[in-house]
């Protein structure tokens, strides 16, 4: 965490030196990931526009900004709604984990609904929205607000004259600036914003767009910083989730990766494999791929690693995408790996999800959340191929690289399994991608030799470790795992790998 913040500091400093612009101070939203992609938050004491279609999460994001202001930064807030009744809003926000009543009673939050009934309005000449300013002013005064939300602007202005609107939009934004409150104003994509009217260009210093797209029947919400005057910002789209813990955005960390490189080592949990790796095991914070066809014992190796890490009091997160946790625990008992008591002690945590439920990026967001929650140092993804569809156009590889970079920055050791074999490498393009982004790769192959199926294990790639170049036979039985070097005459038969990335 520490070094990422340093990094951001450096980035923003560098930006100032280059551009010589005025110093823009930022207010942290406290929303996971959003402060990363904006390099420190939204403009302080200025309005930010959040645009998106119905149901993209504008209200939740805006509420998150207000609630975090109260709980994390001691800044009271006003939430002015033009849509939902305040009671309905309270109920809806409970499902997002925000208990509004508590803050209202502490006089840190003020909710007000401004309802505009178009049927009631008849125009008889020039008018302005000073009435809104009076109400906003009173609301801000009431709780001494530093943050304010207007949700959403379209509802307020539908049915009013376009010419007057343009002028009044501008006045609203200037008024908010004068009041020195950090504001989020939500609006739908449509008539006024991100279209030919392009009002956002004139009025807001920071514009964030939310959208929701369906791909392969899986909907993904995404966020993009359209504009951020006076500040460096990322131009990519980032996926985000909404759940009981509010809103989370998958941050990027790979823009300028400056990792702490550790020389500390962590055991593989199997003595012989450690011996292959300079007798020390893996580097802490590195990524390890265990690859092989079905039934070669990938999950067993992973479980051995997880068990050993737990024994040494590491917090381990086991992400299972194929077998259910109970099944894994039972199966591993048969080869002498005991995971159950580590779950009880709190050192081991399972995350289980069928691949069809969500796509890769949403899995990664959820996993990242758990990582933060339990503060773990070892993560296992078993198997990664299950959550990667063979869609060449998708950005799965980028997603995975970003995630591995994130783990690296956090100094978390990650072990992935994949059903990658020498054959599948040639057939499926995405498979080659996975193996090239990890630091260390162990391959297991099954061969039929002298009327017996035998498993062979090789270290194919190991960045920064002088690994053993020998081939080993892998034996998994009730006594546990044993790995022994292959005899010379068998070697020739076993080894038929030409090249491997």
């Amino acid at each position, binding site marked *: 965490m520490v070094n990422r913040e340093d990094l951001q500091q450096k980035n923003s400093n560098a930006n100032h030196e280059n551009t010589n612009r005025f110093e823009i101070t930022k207010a942290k939203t406290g929303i996971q990931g959003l402060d990363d992609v904006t390099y420190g938050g939204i403009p302080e004491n200025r309005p930010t526009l959040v645009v998106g279609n119905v149901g993209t999460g504008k209200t939740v994001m805006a509420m998150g900004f207000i609630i975090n202001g109260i709980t994390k930064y001691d800044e009271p807030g006003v939430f002015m709604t033009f849509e939902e009744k305040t009671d309905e809003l309270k109920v809806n926000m409970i499902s997002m984990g925000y208990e509004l009543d508590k803050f209202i009673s502490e006089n840190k939050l003020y909710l*007000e609904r*401004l*309802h*505009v009934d178009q049927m*009631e*309005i*008849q*125009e*008889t*000449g*020039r*008018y*302005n*929205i*000073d*009435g*809104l300013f*009076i*109400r906003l*002013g*009173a609301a801000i005064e009431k709780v001494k607000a530093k943050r304010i939300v207007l949700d959403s602007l379209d509802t*307020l202005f539908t049915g*009013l004259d376009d010419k007057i609107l343009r002028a009044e939009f501008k006045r609203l934004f200037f008024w908010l600036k004068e009041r020195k409150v950090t504001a989020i104003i939500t609006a739908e994509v449509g008539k006024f914003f991100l279209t030919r009217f392009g009002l956002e260009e004139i009025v807001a210093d920071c514009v964030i767009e939310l959208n929701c797209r369906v791909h392969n029947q899986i909907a993904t919400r995404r966020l993009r910083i359209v504009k951020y005057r006076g500040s460096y910002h990322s131009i990519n789209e980032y996926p985000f989730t909404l759940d009981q813990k509010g809103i989370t955005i998958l941050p990027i960390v790979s823009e300028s990766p400056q990792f702490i490189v550790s020389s500390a080592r962590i055991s593989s949990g199997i003595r012989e494999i450690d011996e292959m790796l300079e007798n020390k095991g893996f580097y802490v914070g590195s990524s390890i791929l265990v690859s092989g066809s079905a039934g070669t014992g990938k999950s067993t190796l992973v479980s051995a690693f997880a068990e050993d890490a737990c024994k040494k009091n590491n917090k381990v997160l086991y992400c299972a995408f194929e077998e259910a946790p109970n099944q894994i625990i039972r199966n591993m008992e048969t080869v002498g790996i005991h995971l159950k008591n580590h779950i009880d002690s709190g050192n081991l945590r399972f995350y289980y999800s069928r691949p069809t439920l969500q796509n890769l990026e949403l899995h990664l967001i959820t996993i990242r959340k758990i990582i933060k929650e339990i503060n773990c140092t070892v993560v296992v993804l078993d198997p990664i191929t299950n959550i990667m569809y063979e869609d060449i156009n998708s950005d799965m590889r980028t997603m995975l690289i970003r995630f591995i970079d994130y783990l690296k920055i956090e100094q978390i050791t990650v072990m992935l399994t994949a059903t990658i074999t020498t054959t599948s490498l040639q057939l499926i393009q995405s498979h080659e991608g996975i193996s090239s982004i990890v630091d260390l790769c162990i391959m297991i192959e099954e061969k039929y030799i002298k009327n017996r199926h035998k498993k062979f294990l090789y270290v194919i790639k190991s960045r920064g470790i002088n690994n053993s170049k020998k081939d080993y036979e892998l034996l998994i039985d009730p006594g546990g795992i044993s790995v022994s070097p292959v005899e010379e005459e068998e070697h020739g038969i076993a080894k038929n790998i030409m090249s491997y990335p």
Partner: protein
Amino acid sequence: MEIEQFVFQLFVIPGTVDSNHAIKNIQMFCEKYLKGMYEIEIIQINEHPAWAMKENIFALPLLIKKMPLPEDRLIGDLSDTNKILKMLRIES
């Protein structure tokens, strides 16, 4: 027959152009069409922000016809006389 009495509330911010026009326009209108049968209460909303919430006000100036019922609302500087007549259901 009893003469119908019109009761208006006009919400303004004194000193603004639109509000000044509205005050002038409603007085002229009432003198012309409703002489002797109207009451206007002019409310300086900036002095009473609580009213803004109570009456759900956002656009100004705002004219509310309290009596006779039903209540009607007009926003703007009241320069469009025909619209006011239409709202009051008065034949010009």
